[in-house]
């Protein structure tokens, strides 16, 4: 791949939890407008790495480059960068309030006016078929519904990069296929995706690039074709 | 009124209601606001020593004299006196009812080991009580002698609950008389008289003191007008204070 297509790069990332070294990654590349997958067994450090890449966790050693430039940790610039990203978390957290409050929250934080928030929330809810949930309280919805709300919340800002940690947990068949389809659609645009999953079919169907973690080390980087033949046992 | 005069005084004075009659004419005349801070005698004197009051109105002669001697106070004047009474339960186990001699009454209380409540708080009243014990040549101690470390009213309540003897100022007794069963058993002994003095704080000690108004207040309270108000002030139908700056017969 050419350098032009690289949107985010990580070099020499080392992360400790207490005494335990959980990440040690020399070089990692996120390709623009593509489906980048991060796979690996439980506890291999995927979520930890995602937190670093998405600029949520600053407590690590190493360097990050966004479009070739080192990430600036000065507060305002950091915020600007973060606002280009979105994260769908492994176990989504919903804030106390209605479903529509939760979905609209990132826009609210960006100072978007109420009317426009209302409009976009409605649109997004329709896409995900959760319109009837909008007025429900955050703790009055089912597991899959919660997942969908968190997906809607992450998509509503139309981020440049979206980091996704096992988004299809708890989702039903229809929702999964919607998710896969919707994401593919989005990625035909400029959007970049980093997806963590244990779902092999998803990898097979969607992946443009595969990164495989094991015990905190990147043991494979490359395209799916090569990967399929050799390494599938490690997922 | 913008100008302010801080007067520290004892709770008994404030609680008697006298100041509410005595001060307004002064405040109006001199266009000054008198802020009354009512605390224990010891605390009142301490506040004055720290320059936190301009003038004090208290009743503890030895402490007052020390205050003046040490240079904190100047121009002390007698204002008025009231009297203490010895209260006790109806059945009067020490058999002191109707006695005129307070010292003798104290002796009988001690001999019969009847419960006696002392304020034990170093207040003017407490000092007076202790001085009587000294004159009676008794060191009060033992389970019959209870120290509350509280104000007059609270101590009267303890005495009432415990059906014990206590020495109290007449004003506070009157205020409590509706709620308690204790009765006046001894009164009228000259040793039980309780003189009040007013002392401005020495302006040489602190620059901010309102000495001028303090002196004006001294002048007013010891004047015909002030003394008359004191003389005529009654509560529960009884006169509480007797003016001492001007002899009562000379008040016009």
């Amino acid at each position, binding site marked *: 791949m050419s350098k032009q297509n690289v949107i985010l790069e990580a070099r020499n990332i080392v992360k400790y939890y207490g005494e335990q070294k959980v990440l040690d990654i020399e070089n990692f590349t996120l390709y623009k407008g593509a489906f980048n997958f991060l796979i690996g067994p439980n506890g291999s450090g995927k979520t930890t790495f995602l*937190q670093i890449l*998405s*600029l*949520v966790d600053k407590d690590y050693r190493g360097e990050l480059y966004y479009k070739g430039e080192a990430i600036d940790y000065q*507060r305002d610039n950091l*915020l600007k960068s*973060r*606002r280009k*990203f*979105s*994260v769908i*978390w492994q*176990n*989504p*957290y919903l*804030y*106390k*309030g209605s479903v529509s*409050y939760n979905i609209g*929250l*990132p826009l*609210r*934080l*960006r100072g978007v006016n109420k009317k426009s928030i209302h409009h976009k929330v409605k649109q997004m809810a329709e896409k995900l078929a959760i319109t009837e949930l909008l007025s429900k309280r955050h703790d009055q919805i089912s597991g899959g519904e919660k997942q969908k709300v968190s997906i809607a*919340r992450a998509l509503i*800002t139309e981020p440049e990069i979206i*980091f996704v940690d096992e988004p299809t947990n708890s989702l039903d068949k229809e929702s999964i296929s919607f998710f896969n389809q919707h994401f593919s659609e989005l990625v035909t645009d400029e959007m970049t995706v980093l997806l963590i999953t244990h779902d092999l079919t998803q990898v097979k169907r969607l992946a443009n690039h595969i990164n495989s973690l094991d015990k905190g080390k990147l043991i494979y980087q490359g395209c799916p074709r090569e990967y399929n033949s050799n390494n599938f046992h490690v997922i | 009124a913008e100008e302010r005069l*801080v007067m520290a005084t004892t*709770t008994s004075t*404030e*609680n008697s209601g006298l100041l509410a009659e005595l001060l307004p004419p002064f405040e109006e005349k001199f266009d000054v*606001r008198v*802020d*009354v*801070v*009512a*605390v224990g005698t010891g605390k009142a004197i301490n506040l004055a020593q*720290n*320059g*936190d009051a301009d003038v004090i109105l208290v009743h503890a002669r030895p402490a007052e004299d020390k205050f003046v001697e040490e240079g904190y106070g100047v121009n002390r004047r007698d204002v008025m006196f009231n009297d203490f009474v010895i209260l006790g339960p109806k059945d009067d186990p020490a058999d002191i009812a109707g006695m005129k001699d307070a010292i003798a009454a104290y002796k009988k209380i001690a001999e019969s080991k009847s419960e006696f409540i002392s304020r034990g708080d170093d207040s003017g009243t407490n000092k007076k009580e202790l001085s009587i014990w000294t004159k009676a040549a008794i060191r009060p101690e033992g389970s019959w002698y209870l120290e509350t470390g509280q*104000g007059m*009213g*609270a101590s*009267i*309540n303890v005495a009432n609950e415990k059906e014990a003897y206590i020495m109290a100022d007449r004003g*506070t007794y009157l*205020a*409590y008389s509706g*709620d308690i069963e204790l009765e006046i058993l001894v009164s009228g002994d000259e040793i039980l008289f309780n003189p009040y003095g007013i002392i401005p704080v020495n302006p040489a000690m*602190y620059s*901010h003191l309102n000495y001028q108004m303090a002196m004006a207040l001294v002048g007013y309270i010891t004047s015909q007008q002030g003394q008359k108000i004191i003389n005529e002030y009654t509560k529960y139908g009884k006169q509480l204070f007797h003016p001492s700056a001007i002899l009562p017969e000379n008040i016009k």
Partner: protein
Amino acid sequence: MNYLQEALIEAFKLIINLDRELLDVVTTSLRLSVTSTLIAALPGILLGIIISRNNFGGKKVINVILNTLLGLPTVVVGLFVYSLISRRGPLGELDMLFSIRGIILGQIILILPIIIALSRNAIHDIDDKMYKTAISMGATRLQQFKLLLAEARYGISGALIAAFGRVIGEIGVSMMLGGNIRGVTRTITTAMAMETNKGRFGFGLALGLILLTIAFLVNFGVYYLQAGESSV
């Protein structure tokens, strides 16, 4: 001597007559407690968050000290502030003794530990995911703070309510620093203490009932304001 009955009747009479002095002390009490609580709220909550969210050496000791300060007797605060603002104290020039400002200073010192400790407790139990989600949504520092307040609102408003309760019901500080000066620094509680001293127990209790009624109304108002509130 049914004090309670007497107190009820007295309280009723006082309220019906809308005594000017009563109005005065009620206003003073309310003004004091609302002001002190509001001033102490922001630094208190911030310190609570800082203590709860950061690991630093001596954190344990600070926590134990905080817990200790919950037992700060009003008299100690009163004496301490007195020694500062008395004429002979370092702040004597400011002329704060026997004034509303003096009381407020003392009350703030009294309730700061309460607000810090109780908001620390409230924030302690907030899920780490809350913070991560807020950051990933692109919340500024201030917005993160507001989101945290919204999530911990039950506990934090509990802290403020406890602080408000502490100041509206306290006597020591108001007495010592205010001096219970009629028409100036007399509050419901100092008036209550005075009446009790005079032996007017019924009247004292009546004032207590009025105090509780007012505290009830304030809490009621806050409760219903909160119910209709939204955040960020």
